[in-house]
């Protein structure tokens, strides 16, 4: 299992499009992907789950990956959390 906290920088937070891109990317990996914000958690492969976390700019989000290909998943998904998405 790998786990680390990231700070989301997109000024609009993690809305529909970033959630979709993130979940799509997460889907490509066989491992489990979970995001935590405070005491809430969501399946990283579900855009809806990500949306219901209500991630806004400056939020600290813990990314946890577990299973096959977790190292690669961690690297790519971690980067996505700290990117600015095209509107």
């Amino acid at each position, binding site marked *: 299992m790998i786990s680390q906290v990231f700070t989301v920088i997109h000024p609009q937070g993690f809305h529909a499009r970033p959630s979709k891109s993130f979940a799509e990317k997460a889907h490509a990996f066989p491992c489990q992907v979970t995001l935590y914000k405070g005491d809430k958690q969501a399946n990283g492969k579900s855009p809806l789950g990500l949306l219901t976390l*209500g991630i806004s700019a400056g939020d600290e989000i813990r990314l946890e990956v577990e299973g096959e290909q977790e190292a690669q998943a961690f690297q790519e998904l971690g980067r996505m959390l700290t990117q600015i998405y095209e509107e």
Partner: protein
Amino acid sequence: MSHLLTGVPASPGIAIAKAYRLEMEESIPQREEIEDRAAEMRRLKKAIESAKVDIDRIREQTLERLGPQKAEIFEAHLFLLDDPELTDAALARIDREGVCAEFALYEVAAAIMDALRSMDNEMLRERAADVGDITRRVINKLEGRAHHMFSELNDEVILFAKDLTPSDTAQLNMDYIRGFVTEIGSRTSHSAIMARSLELAAVVGAGSDASQIRTGDTVILDATSGEIIVNPSRSQMEDYSERKRKYEDDVLRMKSYVDRPSVTADEVHVELAGNIGGIEDLEKVLDNGADGIGLFRTEFLYMGRSTFPSEEEQYSVYKHVLEKMNGKRVVIRTLDIGGDKELTYMQLPQEMNPFLGLRAIRLCLDREDLFRTQLRALLRASAHGKLAIMFPMISLLSELREAKRILNEERIRLEQEGVMVASDLEVGMMIETPAAALAADLLAEEVDFFSIGTNDLIQYTMAADRMNESVSYLYQPHHPVILRMVQLVIQAADRHGKWAGMCGEMAGDASAIPLLLGLGLHEFSMSASSVLPARELLSRLSRQEWSRLAAEALNMSSQQEVLDFVNNQLRSEA
């Protein structure tokens, strides 16, 4: 009898037509036990697949009509139908409880929609509409009901609905639909955003009173103000027909200025730039054909959060803006905080006179760590476009020198680290204090540009707090005293071969632009929506003529005299 309703103007335009009411079929699925759970799960999967075929068709139509960005909404819908939190959860519910597919899906979707609606972010709340849209479509499939189409229309109408789903909006029959009104919804809903791309008049959130409007009622929809007049009088009809014609002419005329250069009648080129407060303002600046960004207020990066933004975060934001502007100049102002603008996570002493206190560059020079972080982010971003760094609230030459010294130190440090910094990076300052305006000739030697911040310059020149209503009469942008300040600054810049701009409210004001042009201002930075009207105005003005007129205005005795003079002149030219 005519009556009036109001709502939120979501997409500008004026329409006059008969109302057409779109009735929503909103049956709530009931809990029904089923025998064959596996068969029920197959039934749901089949309905979802069939809904996907529909949505994919809408996606293709939208791609054709509105382009890839809007079509993405439906890509997202397709993706939502695969979402484990929705589909898998509904399937699991059938499997576990033996309930019918309609009920299982409805229950799961309702819980997700509730969670989304409880968010404190409007954008996220609006996503509940997406979930509702796809869920309704699948339930309609399950119940064998057709999703609404607009095929029966054969005359111009204004559509009335409780709400419009994204897929409804994408399928609006533009041959006949002249506008729409919804009872709920906000400016950020997909239907509002799509209406703006379709250039369709739209008012949202008109409230339940709008449900009284029936198919066949005559309606005037003024989506510039948000007003809806039902069964208007004859004189109202005539009045609005005229307004509609004028509005449409204006829109067409303004549009023709998007790709034109900002040039006066006597062929003098100036720069018309946009002001932004964040990434979300970029699109408007680009859509309105601005020549660049004349003021990027970086405060937003620091506000509404609990810690200072890191160098890396800031770098990403600045780089993004520079890349989006694609080689056009972007003036980024360093942090202007302190005084009345507070950060919750930064302890600043209470001040008696915040506007005269530790703010902007004064604060940054006091808290060098903050300043250095921002400067490093800016320097690194400079490699990705045409960046100009601007220091706010400089009063003294020594403050400018100190700010530049720190900037230079960070630049050398970065270069030693092997980081690319643009060689053509411009460094300038705002002119907001009378001290800076009067010393502009001295300051000009050490900057690449000036940008006049009129709100503060007026406040400090008149010694009138702009938050205090009892002295608001002193806020006089057109007063000859302010014009003289502006002239000093422009002349100083000219003598040293530097450029002078303005990024306050005044720069976009139609009655100030002719004077500023006449005084020789090079760059005007304003809110994006003012750019096209300013460009149109400019094309009718002669700089030579206005430099003579501005010289006259400088010797007048009051703002009123100047305003009357300018307006008379503009009227006689028209």
